[in-house]
């Protein structure tokens, strides 16, 4: 983690000469800059996270008078066949993996295309930006109810129009896989694309126009400009968007909960969905915390790979 994140920032190592001058601000300056955030971070993120580890080592239910020590059993049980949660948990991890694999590329690429479209000057630009951004303003509760109705296999609008266009018209978008995955990924792209698009828009602002002008003068095609100016300029932002989208997809829960209810046979029940069932409905916070940490560990490993890839790209 350490060395790799460092390398992702597109920056040259600070010149030694300035290093000495920076002393003028005193050794405490960076810590003072960090302090306000640090207090919030330690109070509401770090401490709860450490406390969460403690929870995961107990048969924890904060409502019961005692919390029996469980050691690493909550973790080990997930790897034991025939345990209460093992099979269900890995099935839910699989669901999360499927969703992530299909949604992340779409949510990284399509918003970039849309951001580049919307970065041009044309009449009505503000209106179009608002159009693409609006779905994200809606909460998952609304989007879920809306799409459950639109995607319904027997009475839904999508199938109704597909039938009009001469297709079969009984695709089970919410009750059978793989259709349910198409439905969930599709609606998630519709819903959250605006979020990534505005991050890209901000990133595109940061690319100096002179670079494009220079490329034009050299006779570069649009594709050349995209490859040699836009992408390198967006690299830190791209890494950020990729990481964030990966996390958002891995934390997907509301869509499944509201639209498929995990059907069929819990194959669209995602990890967070399952964790919240175990932790909030069955009041088994210890097990739920252990699952959360295993999921987090997997995400960290995947993201490390991402950071690595970005770094290699940089070096090549």
């Amino acid at each position: 983690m350490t060395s790799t994140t460092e390398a992702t920032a597109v920056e040259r190592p600070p010149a030694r000469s300035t290093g000495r001058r920076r002393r003028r601000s005193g050794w405490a300056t960076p810590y003072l800059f960090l302090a306000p955030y640090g207090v919030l971070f330690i109070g509401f993120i770090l401490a709860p996270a450490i406390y969460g580890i403690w929870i995961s080592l107990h048969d924890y239910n904060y409502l019961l008078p005692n919390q029996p020590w469980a050691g690493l059993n909550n973790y080990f049980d997930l790897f034991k066949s025939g345990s209460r949660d093992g099979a269900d948990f890995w099935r839910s991890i699989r669901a999360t993996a499927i969703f992530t694999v299909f949604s992340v590329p779409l949510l990284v690429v399509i918003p970039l295309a849309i951001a580049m479209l919307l970065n041009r000057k044309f009449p009505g630009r503000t209106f179009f930006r608002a159009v693409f951004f609006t779905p994200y303003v809606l909460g998952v509760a609304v989007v879920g109810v809306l799409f459950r109705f639109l995607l319904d296999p027997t009475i839904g609008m999508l199938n109704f129009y597909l039938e009009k266009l001469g297709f079969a018209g009984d695709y089970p978008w919410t009750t059978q896989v793989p259709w349910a995955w198409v439905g969930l990924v599709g609606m998630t792209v519709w819903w959250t694309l605006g979020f990534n698009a505005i991050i890209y828009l901000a990133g595109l602002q940061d690319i100096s126009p002179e670079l494009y002008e220079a490329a034009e003068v050299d006779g570069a095609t649009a594709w050349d400009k995209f490859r040699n100016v836009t992408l390198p300029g967006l690299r830190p932002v791209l890494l950020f968007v990729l990481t964030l989208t990966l996390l958002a997809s891995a934390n997907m829960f509301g869509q499944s909960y509201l639209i498929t209810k995990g059907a069929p046979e819990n194959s669209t029940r995602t990890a967070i969905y399952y964790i919240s069932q175990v932790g909030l409905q069955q009041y088994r916070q210890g097990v739920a915390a252990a699952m959360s940490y295993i999921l987090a560990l997997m995400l960290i490993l995947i993201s490390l790979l991402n950071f690595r890839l970005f770094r290699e790209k940089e070096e090549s």
Partner: protein
Amino acid sequence: MNQLNVPLSRRGFMGAAGAVGGALALAACGGKSTPPGAGAGPTASGAGTAYNGPNVTLAFWNGWTGADGDYAKQMVSQFNSETKNVKVNMNVFQWADFFQKMPAAVTSGNGPDIAVMHIDAIPTQAAQRVIVPIDAVANSLKLNQGDYAEAVWQGGIYKDQRYGIPIDVHCLGLFYNKDVFEKAGLDPEKPPTNKDEYMAALEAMKSKGIQGSWVSPFQFTGGLMYQSLLWQFGGELFNEDVSKATWDSEGGIAALTFMTDLVKNGYSPKNVGQDADYVALKNGRNALNWQGIWQVNEVTKLTTTKIGLAELPKIGEKGGVWGNSHQFVLPRTQGSDENKVNAAAYFVNWFTQNSADWAKSGKVPAVESLAESSEFTSIEGLQPFAKEVPDVHFPPAVAGISDAMTAMYDAVNAAVLGKSDPASALRSAANKASQILAQNKKKYG
């Protein structure tokens, strides 16, 4: 909002940091954030039927959102205008959130003074000390077993102590589309009452190109339909001492097979989404729907189609109806204020006496004499449901029972969606549920 006058000062931040230390320290000594409070009960004799103490304000929490809440709100404001020295403040949250929110609030000392819960949640919340025994209130109100249906009366009891005072029963009934009946040449005033009539009706509709009995693969209402059928076929969800799930018995398999056959034989589409069965019924594309009493108020107001309401048909050899009940519970409070408890008892008594009003929200009063009163019998559409009450079953009063029930709902989902045959889906779900029951026994004692 007054807290917002607190300046966001360094002290606030320090306080935050300090609290973290505190939480960690607490964690280190067992993670209890509050001392266990003792249960409370009214001690004053004659409590419940009158309240003569000093003025008190009661926080009353329930999950009656939307239209339900409107009826309850009216009743509460009527109570407040009738009662000088008790003011009830009602607060509603979605039922989906209620059983996380209320325990958290109670634990942190912010809980309500009186609340409503479903009968199947009571054992779990009693075991978690979110609610306290309410025997004293029940005694002071002179509640009497003879006034209630057996299952309703027994349901509020956990480990020989009463935790819930019944308000209502809400159960499944048969909703049928009269227009479709006419189209299929059936008598719209004669809904099917047994298996033969049910199948004959479906056959008549099928010949007219209508799939007449949509089967939902989800808990609402496919899972509820399954339980009703299971009891009708002589099955039980659990064995006598609730150590094993028994829905993989002959009756249980027959019940689920009946449902999957409806799909197989074309009386229902293959992939019925959540609520699609009910929406299709309102639109005349489905004719028979095993649906909850909570939809009565909507279907009686429809203008484009006529929906009939009837008791569930007896597909098996006996009556069996899924049902649930709202019950008053007493949350554990950090200090027990006797006046509040007495006032709460008085409010519970008042609300129960007036539960025929409450029934207008689409419920059957739990007290049998009220269910027979003209006030209730004049409410359109609810009578078939009242007739079913003797056949209503509730889950056994065991803490964590819903964890085990979830496995059964999963089996229904798998079988109805054609992922697995009924017998093997039920068998593996029952094994899993039995494992869960054993674990819960250890956890809750």
